[in-house]
């Protein structure tokens, strides 16, 4: 008997090493996969952040400019139409020629293409809009926006191969060089406020993210307000009240299937029902919200049902045992206990909705929308659509802006998740 | 319900412990029975050697009694017996005490045997002693058998038999009293014999007690301090 025991131990020991090795290998596979995933993530993030942060900044050239009422053609400072319709382009052009000492036609052209004349003109217009009477006739210093090609070149100065140099001729490079050498009054790089405060534009230096951001915000608001209550009501009914029969089975199967339907189908549905049949306004967050509600509902319902199922039956029994009615059990115990899980599902659904573009394409939210929406019935676009459109644009300044917009989108998502985590922890602390 | 099924517990160990308890009890019963047989034989045949043997066995019986008590306490503490198991443990615990007393009475008889034999004279009254001794031996033997078989009917018969023994004892006493009145010189010897008779009668009482424990064990009925007819009525209500 003892001999046999010793033999068994030996056999076990012999296999033990092999077993340990297998175990280590198994762990190594896992670590390897995690490393691979992390590397991809790091690569993606460094790329986006390095590109994106550039998009947040812009180069400006401070210029002194005399606001000549005659050149602008403004006679009455109280007349808004005059101020809006004034000829800022000529004013800025003239000043730019002076700065670059351009006299000949060719020189003028060289100088003109270095500065974003129109965008600078809009800045002056913005100033006059609020304060025309006191500013007209004075000389002010204004940060003129450089042309997006110049910005591109300046941002990459010192990089290998001098990217962007090919955009300019000899004379222009000379002019840029001169400005670069200046100690004062040369180019300065600062936060691109336009990017955060204005809507889309055909000119990359004037293009901003605000309209897309607000569009996304309104869209999410509509989606949340619709999908959260509907989703939870559905989940509660199906879990707590619905009799188990063929019909509820059918509904359950359909909800599960809906979660797997390609999102563009929801767009088609939205187009057919909300736009064609009900005649809601096109391109609006309202319709977008309806469509995305349809899309996120299955996710919310499924996760909410799981959360409700996870509520321990002992709690329900306890409540029933002291005579609580079904509604009281549901409202006092089941929903509060399931709320963290429901919120998680909702946040996942909303995050999905935030990143969605295909269904919105179908209801016209891909249109070019320069104006910032102020209500859910204003036409607007959303962040992913904006990113897509900017990337599609060949202009160098736009791809930078697209990367910056991606950062904004990611930040948006992180904030949403943080909100969810905060809400969860608060809800859980109550118990 | 006459079958107790002591050996059908899920716990085999429990079966074994209860079985041990019963076996030990019956073994002790065997020793006491032998003691009584020897004591009766010693006093009727005036065999002092046998009487000494009876006296020497006494300590064994005492040890057995303590061992059995200990076993009962252990079973109660560790197994918390219920129903028939509880009744088995309780009856054995009580019956052990009766057995030990029987042993004590046998010892008294043996002591009387030695005293009488020292006087070296056979007296009248030995006939009664023999007669009673035989009956008591039979009752003790029947009691142990009834316990081994959980036999209620025999237990009832034992209770009846004990009444008969009591009557026989009364008769023997009357005979001895007459004898003493006839011949006052023999009073002290006759007294020794009455002591032995008395001891035999006590053994019969203890046997009846054990019979009552058997009825309690099997039927769960407490029939102490009841007449025979009351006992029969309770044990066999339908008859």
């Amino acid at each position, binding site marked *: 008997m003892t001999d046999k025991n010793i033999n068994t131990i030996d056999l076990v020991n012999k296999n033990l090493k092999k077993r340990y090795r297998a175990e280590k290998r198994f762990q190594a596979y896992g670590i390897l996969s995690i490393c691979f995933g992390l590397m991809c993530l790091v690569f993606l993030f460094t790329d986006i952040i390095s590109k994106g942060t550039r998009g947040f900044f812009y180069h400006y050239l401070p210029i002194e400019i005399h606001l000549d009422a005659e050149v602008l053609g403004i006679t009455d400072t109280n007349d808004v139409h005059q101020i809006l319709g004034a000829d800022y382009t000529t004013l800025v052009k003239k000043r730019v020629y002076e700065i670059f000492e351009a006299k000949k036609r060719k020189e003028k052209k060289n100088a003109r293409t270095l500065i974003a004349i129109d965008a600078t003109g809009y800045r002056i217009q913005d100033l006059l809009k609020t304060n025309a009477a006191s500013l007209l006739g004075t000389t002010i210093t204004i940060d003129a926006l450089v042309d997006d090609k110049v910005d591109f070149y300046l941002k990459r100065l010192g990089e290998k191969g001098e990217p962007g140099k090919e955009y300019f001729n000899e004379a222009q490079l000379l002019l840029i060089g001169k400005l670069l050498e200046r100690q004062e009054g040369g180019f300065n790089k600062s936060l691109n406020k336009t990017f955060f405060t204005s809507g889309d534009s055909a000119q990359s230096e004037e293009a901003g993210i605000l309209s897309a951001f607000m569009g996304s915000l309104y869209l999410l608001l509509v989606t949340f307000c619709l999908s959260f209550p509907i989703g939870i009501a559905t989940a509660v009914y199906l879990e707590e009240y619905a009799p188990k029969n063929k019909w509820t089975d059918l509904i359950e199967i359909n909800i599960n299937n809906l979660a797997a339907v390609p999102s563009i189908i929801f767009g088609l549905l939205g187009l057919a029902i909300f736009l064609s049949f009900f005649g809601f306004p096109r391109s609006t967050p309202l319709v977008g919200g309806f469509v995305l509600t349809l899309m996120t509902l299955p996710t919310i319902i499924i996760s909410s049902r799981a959360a409700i199922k996870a509520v321990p039956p002992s709690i329900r*029994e306890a409540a029933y045992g002291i*005579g609580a009615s079904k509604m009281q059990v549901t409202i006092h115990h089941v929903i509060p206990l399931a709320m963290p899980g429901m919120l998680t599902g909702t946040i996942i659904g909303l995050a999905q909705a935030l990143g969605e573009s295909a269904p919105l394409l179908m209801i016209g939210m891909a249109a070019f929308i320069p104006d910032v929406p102020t209500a859910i019935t204003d036409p607007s676009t959303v962040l992913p659509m904006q990113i897509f459109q900017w990337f599609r644009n060949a202009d160098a300044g736009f791809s930078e802006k697209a990367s910056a917009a991606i950062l904004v989108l990611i930040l948006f998502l992180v904030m949403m998740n943080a909100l969810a985590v905060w809400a969860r922890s608060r809800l859980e602390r109550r118990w | 319900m006459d079958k107790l099924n002591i050996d059908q517990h899920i716990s085999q160990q429990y079966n074994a412990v209860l079985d041990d308890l019963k076996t030990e009890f019956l073994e002790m019963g065997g020793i006491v029975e032998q003691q009584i047989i020897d004591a009766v034989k010693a006093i009727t045949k005036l065999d002092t050697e046998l009487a000494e043997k009876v006296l020497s066995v006494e300590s064994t019986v005492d040890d057995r009694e303590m061992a059995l008590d200990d076993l009962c306490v252990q079973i109660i503490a560790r197994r918390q017996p219920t*129903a028939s198991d509880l009744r088995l443990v309780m009856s054995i615990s009580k019956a052990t005490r009766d057995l030990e007393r029987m042993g004590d009475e046998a010892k008294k008889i043996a002591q009387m045997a030695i005293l009488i034999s020292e006087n070296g004279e056979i007296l009248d009254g030995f006939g009664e002693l023999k007669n009673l001794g035989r009956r008591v031996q039979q009752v003790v033997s029947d009691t142990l058998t009834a316990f081994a078989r959980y036999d209620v009917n025999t237990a009832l018969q034992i209770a009846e038999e004990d009444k008969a023994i009591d009557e026989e004892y009364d008769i023997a006493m009357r005979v001895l009293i007459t004898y003493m009145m006839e011949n006052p010189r023999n009073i002290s010897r006759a007294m020794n014999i009455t002591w032995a008779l008395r001891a035999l009668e006590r053994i019969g009482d203890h046997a009846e007690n054990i019979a009552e424990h058997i009825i309690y064990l099997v039927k769960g009925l407490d029939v102490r301090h009841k007449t025979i007819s009351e006992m029969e009525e309770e044990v066999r209500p339908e008859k």
Partner: protein
Amino acid sequence: MENNTITDINDIKETVGIPLVDNAKMSMRDVDVFYGEKQAIFGVSLDIGVNEVIAMIGPSGCGKSTFLRCLNRMNDTIEICKVTGQLHLEGQNIYDSKLDVVPLRARVGMVFQKPNPFPKSIYDNVAYGPRIHGLAARRADMDEIVETSLRKAGLWEEVKDRLHQPGTGLSGGQQQRLCIARTIAVSPEVILMDEPCSALDPIATAKIEELIDELSENFTIAIVTHSMQQAARVSHRTAYFHLGKLVEVNETEKVFTNPDHSLTEAYITGRFG
């Protein structure tokens, strides 16, 4: 001579012992319970006397918990469960279709196997029942109900300084006493206990048993237990269930010294089950 390893339910003819009493708080007659096609309880007739502690014992799956749950219609939550027969609480049919289960459960409270306090404060746990039934008009009344209930449950001294801490932070035994306090806060007439000590250590169990004894002065208690010793310790009468039938009901002393039915005997002495 019976065979002690009966497993055929047809061999159990009728309940032996004393299933019916004179001053019945609840009386059940010919109760059958079905789970779908399967019958779980077969024609059980039993009375529960006023201020009596009745213990229900039996092997697993014998229907004792099912029967207990019929007494305050907790089985209603199981859709396929069907109960027939007469179940009366002080002469009122509790399975009357017109009867609302909410007041019924306020009169017949229940304590469960696992301590299941709500994930709320100790105070709110006890106050929940009175609150939903509207038993206290003012805050002071509620405070009084909470204190009395916790006192009756023997928990007041232990928790009076932390009434607003979560009930789930208490030990297992304290949690179970909290559940008992929660149940008695609505002043029920009958308390059903479904293996209330199976998750507790012996000391906590002893405290609950002591509590059951005290509560029996004011409440009628029906307790299902797996521990025969517990049944022996706390109950006045003991009912033995076997395969959905009520085999024997007797005074607890009688059941544990000399049961009438051989099945009861076999179960309590540990010969099967």
